[in-house]
């Protein structure tokens, strides 16, 4: 079927495994693509010791159309499900679902890909907001746990006769049963994917939580946290902006200088400032700053560093007689600014 014989499959780094040396077998018309059901070249390799053998599940055409890994069907750039990537970058799914239409579309696309090249922008260069969101949601480190062997279904029922030599995992299935019902075709097209749904929901929730509109529940928080500053944003500029909303207790700028804490005397002042920043935006020194609620203020040093100089009857005690929790400031973590959670 394939006019060109590919030398190497389209895979993500996680699927290939940690070992930079991988031994792979290639079989020309080994299996049917799980999406388009056409015979394609399958590659099979071991992604690391103690892992199961992985093989390519979808053909190169299907993979290129969605810019996903041939085995895990996750985006090549961010490692995110297709539904998440498409909703962030507003990409439409043009692949028809119906059997015959799909085959025809994919067959035509296979031919076109070689001539026209990629048309859809999968990296989202045009939409920085979407791209930002994807970068935030993506994993920082490769997740090799997904290359492990599948769970032994006989073990789950308690009847695995293979025992020690069983190549499948002898563990009970963990995690949300809702997430277990996944379908490869759904994951590929980007609809009805439970993992994607959960990721999008979590991202929406965290965006709401850190937004300025929702005041934090802890009523003692009277400070705002300002980000995105540079040299043009001065302390006086900040006080000029934030002073009208109430009495300022202090403005603290850490040495790095790209952020600041605005501390108010009372809560209503902070809320007023937050509302204003939400409505009009916060612009200081010509720079648009990002304002969010601060976290609970750390309490001051919690230990008494002064020893009682006299005992009960008034006679001065010899040094070292009184036992305290801290002799030096550094022995008391709260005196150094750390927060005891």
């Amino acid at each position, binding site marked *: 079927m394939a006019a060109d014989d590919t030398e190497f499959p389209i895979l993500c780094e996680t699927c290939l495994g940690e070992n930079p040396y991988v*031994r792979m*077998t290639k079989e020309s018309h080994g299996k049917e693509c799980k999406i388009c059901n056409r015979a394609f070249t399958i590659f099979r390799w071991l992604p690391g*010791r103690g892992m199961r053998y992985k093989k390519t599940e979808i053909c190169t055409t299907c993979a290129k159309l969605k810019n996903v890994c041939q085995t895990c069907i996750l985006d090549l750039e961010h490692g995110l499900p297709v539904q998440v990537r498409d909703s962030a970058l507003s990409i439409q799914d043009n692949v028809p679902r119906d059997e015959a239409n799909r085959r025809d579309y994919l067959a035509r696309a296979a031919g076109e890909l070689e001539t026209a090249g990629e048309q859809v922008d999968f990296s989202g260069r045009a939409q920085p907001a979407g791209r930002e969101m994807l970068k935030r949601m993506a994993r920082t480190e490769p997740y090799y746990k997904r290359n492990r062997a599948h769970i032994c279904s006989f073990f789950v029922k308690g009847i695995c006769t293979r025992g*020690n*030599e069983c190549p499948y995992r002898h563990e009970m299935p963990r995690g949300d049963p809702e997430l277990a019902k996944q379908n490869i075709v759904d994951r590929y097209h980007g609809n009805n994917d439970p993992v994607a749904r959960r990721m999008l929901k979590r991202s929406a929730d965290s965006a709401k939580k850190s937004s300025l509109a929702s005041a934090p529940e802890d009523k003692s928080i009277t400070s705002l946290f300002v980000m995105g500053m540079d040299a043009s944003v001065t302390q006086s500029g900040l006080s000029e902006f934030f002073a009208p909303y109430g009495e300022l207790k202090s403005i603290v700028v850490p040495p790095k200088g790209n952020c600041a804490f605005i501390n108010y005397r009372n809560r209503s002042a902070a809320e007023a400032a937050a509302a204003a920043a939400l409505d009009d935006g916060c612009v200081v020194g010509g720079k648009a700053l990002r304002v969010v609620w601060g976290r609970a203020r750390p309490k001051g040093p919690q230990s008494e560093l002064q020893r009682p100089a006299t005992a009960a009857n008034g006679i001065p005690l010899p040094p070292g007689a009184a036992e305290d929790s801290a002799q030096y400031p550094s022995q008391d973590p709260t005196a150094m600014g750390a927060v005891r959670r």
Partner: protein
Amino acid sequence: MPKAKTLSKRKQQRPEGLDEIEPTLNEFEQRMRDAENESTAGKRKVESTWSVMRIHHQRSRYIYDLYYKRKAISRKLYKYCIDNGYGDGNLIAKWKKQGFEKLCCLQCIQPRDTNYGTACICRVPKANLEEGRTVQCVHCGCRGCASSD
């Protein structure tokens, strides 16, 4: 299975010493027939032939032991056993080589049978295997036939 001959012909060809080993050979024959007729219920697809391979190994081992180790039978009787299928000549030939003294079956050293042109996993000494997990090779169910094991 050796070709059936008429009684007189068979009587002529019997080498001396056959009478002593004959009961054991018959026992092996019986066990082999039982293994061939075993039910395949509850077994994996590959597992069904393991018992046949095992008896084949044991039977050949018996002949090899008698001739090469204990020197209890004559060369003529040994040849008779090989020719009549009571022992596998090719397998015994491997046992004479250093490193292959405990070889399980001939399939396990055939590189054409593996994906990457290697030998079977059962040929790896247990010391090199790590993981701590015993493996049963897919050809004959062997759990390790390296000479050091």
